[in-house]
């Protein structure tokens, strides 16, 4: 047993941190936040050049074939820097769905393009208010043609490749759902960018009108694939959240050391110290749960579903807790546009929702624990 990243993986982390510190300072994040660009194109190109996009993609499909532990390491740095690029939608959702369910031809067609930064991908799952559920999917597919509306779709307005969950049956069961792949040349897709809590990661509404789509995976297997993709994305997103939590904690700590009030650094007051200690505690618990998730993901262990749900819940709570209290430590300054605190607060709350909200994952976790106990 060795419950830590290897020296090589730690080196990769340092490399990614250094790269992001240089190419993705807060002012670069703000260019996207202010709506001047939908995402940071130069940074995205840099991600491709550094090999971040294809780190977990097998070499035969143009990736580095390193594995998911390496991807976790990069995800943490992406979260720490709030990188305003469509990383999670492309890498955690589209690429994972392709790797899990794609035919060899589909993988050949798309994975190299994802790895080299040519293609942005996403998963179109949600249809308005509510959490992931087969029943909530009204979008229909018949004879290779899609009809329906999806929202919100992460990075949907800039995606070249859209994986769509659609209804192909009417039994009311999981088997009614199938996945489809929609490429850029398919007619009949209308994309509308939507305003959202965190403009550094875009959201869109996609409308499909008799849109040509090719099946991804077997008919009726859609829900099972989605569940697996969400579990995998939950672990990877947890690392983004862990990175964000750590950075928010650092910002709070640094401010508490620098800011003098009543003749002392505010970090010398127990009320402030204890708030920062609690942030450390939640960030640490999240990190540990995420490590377990990383191990389960990288070995495809039977524990993955439970580990993923634990990592997801713990990291969601931690990032929200740290981002919120970072603002509190900063006092009035923390609430200004000028300070970076709100960017973490936005990201924390957006990441908390993107793969299904906390209550969905709480439900998942308890179901999975019961199943294990019954086994």
């Amino acid at each position, binding site marked *: 047993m060795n*419950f*830590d990243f290897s020296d090589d993986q730690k080196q990769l982390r340092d490399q990614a941190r250094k790269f992001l510190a240089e190419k993705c300072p807060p002012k670069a994040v703000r260019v996207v936040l202010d709506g001047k660009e939908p995402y940071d194109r130069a940074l995205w190109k840099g991600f491709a050049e550094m090999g971040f996009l294809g780190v977990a993609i097998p070499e035969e499909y143009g990736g580095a074939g390193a594995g998911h532990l390496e991807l976790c390491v990069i995800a943490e740095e992406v979260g720490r820097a709030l990188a305003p690029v469509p990383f999670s939608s492309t890498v955690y959702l589209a690429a994972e769905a392709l790797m899990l369910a794609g035919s060899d031809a589909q993988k050949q067609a798309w994975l190299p393009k994802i790895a080299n930064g040519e293609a942005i991908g996403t998963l179109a799952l949600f249809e308005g208010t509510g959490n992931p559920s087969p029943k909530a999917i009204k979008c229909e597919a018949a004879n290779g043609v899609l009809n329906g509306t999806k929202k919100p779709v992460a990075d949907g307005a800039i995606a070249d490749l859209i994986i769509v969950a659609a209804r192909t049956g009417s039994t009311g069961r999981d088997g009614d759902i199938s996945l489809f792949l929609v490429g850029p040349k398919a007619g009949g897709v209308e994309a509308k960018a939507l305003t959202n809590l965190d403009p550094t990661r875009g959201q869109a509404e996609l409308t499909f009108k008799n849109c040509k789509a090719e099946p991804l995976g077997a008919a009726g297997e859609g829900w099972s694939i989605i569940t697996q993709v969400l579990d995998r994305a939950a672990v990877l997103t947890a690392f983004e959240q862990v990175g964000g939590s750590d950075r928010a904690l650092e910002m709070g700590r640094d401010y508490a050391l620098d800011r003098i009030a009543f003749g002392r650094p505010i970090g010398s007051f127990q009320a402030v110290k204890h708030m920062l*200690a609690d942030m450390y505690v939640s960030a640490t618990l*999240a990190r540990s749960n995420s490590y377990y998730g990383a191990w389960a993901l990288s070995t495809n262990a039977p524990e993955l579903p439970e580990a993923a749900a634990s990592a997801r819940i713990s990291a969601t709570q931690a990032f929200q807790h740290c981002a919120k209290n970072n603002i509190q430590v900063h006092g009035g300054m923390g609430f200004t546009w000028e300070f970076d605190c709100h960017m973490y607060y936005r990201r924390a709350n957006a990441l908390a929702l993107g793969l299904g909200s906390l209550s969905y994952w*709480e439900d998942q*976790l*308890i179901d999975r624990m019961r199943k294990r*106990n019954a086994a």
Partner: protein
Amino acid sequence: MNFDDTPQEAAFRAEARSWIAANAPKQYEDELRATSLGRVGLKNADILEVAKAWQKKKADAGWACLHWPKEYGGRGSSPIERVIWQQEEGPYGKLSGMFIIGHGMCGPTMMAYASEAHKRQYLPPLASGEKVWCQLFSEPAGGSDVAGLRTRAEKRGDDWVINGQKIWTSGAHYSDYGILLTRTDPTVPKHKGLTMFFLDMKSPGVEVRPIKQASGHSDFNEVYFTDVVIPDSQRLGAVNDGWNVALTTLMNERMSIGAGVATGFPELFDFCSNLMLDDRPAIEDRNVRSKLASWAVKASGLKYTSIRAISALSKGERPGPENSIGKLVAGPMIQDVATYALDLQGAAGVLSGPEAELAGKFQAMLLRAPGTRVEGGTDEIMRNIIAERVLGLPGDIRVDKDLPFNQVPTKGRS
């Protein structure tokens, strides 16, 4: 990152498992399993006798104090082997409760500061459970402020004479020996005038008075010293360097990290799985699930945090102050879990003992939990440790820091 046993670890696990299966006191297993936090007691046997017998059996077969060197009664095991042992020992591990302070704190302090002859004399019977040790630090005037203690040690020839009082001393009523922190120079600032000793608890002038706790039980004591004589050869460390010796003891408390910190969660999960609420299992209720999930990730987070610490330990890193997190999370959690389990029982939650649900397991937990948040450092002290020693925030302002101890104010509103 690998979560599975290596072949060597798997072999150790198999050996431990088969030895435990052949030797464990199985007649007590159900009772041991049923107690969580609260009080480990046996209906028809003296728990101390049973615990001592199990410890001796382990020692004779080389399974006691796994991480100690062999010459002092241990096994020289790796930190990971210790965790594997704890996992395999399961409910029988609860029998080690009365040895925790001796094995985790007194023994390592002796190892660091006692003479070789004393180590060989005192450590093996401590490892085997034949002799029980306690730690005499806290005082009425110095709980969290450990260095504020007032028990005096005065040199008389080759001996020291001790007068004063300790409090919150776990297990003093059945301990054979203790390590004792005293004040030897009141004219210097408080951390600079302390000296550590070990002593025989049966020495003339030592009086142990059990304290009745809020739970109704008596696990702690007041200990009074009246002209107790300790030979200078039983001093641990230099005169007036007791604070550094005490820090060694407290650091070793962190070494006793394991993968099985009690949180009350497994008990609550079982309870909610079986309890019927509105004609269906409580665990199917939306609100119950949400609470359970939040506690589940705390419990698993603690488990994997300690496994990360053990991984670091096995690579030769020292356990740092970040390990204060275990008690800080688990303490309040046990209290909240117990409160919630009683809430689910409605008005019947008020009952305790055999009349109550699960023979009052959660009620016992509720009454014991406040102590968990205080003993070994309060929640507030744990947060200070994390804030100051992990995050690097400024220390609290200490107005007594440079004052000679005998000039430190002793009264509040005067």
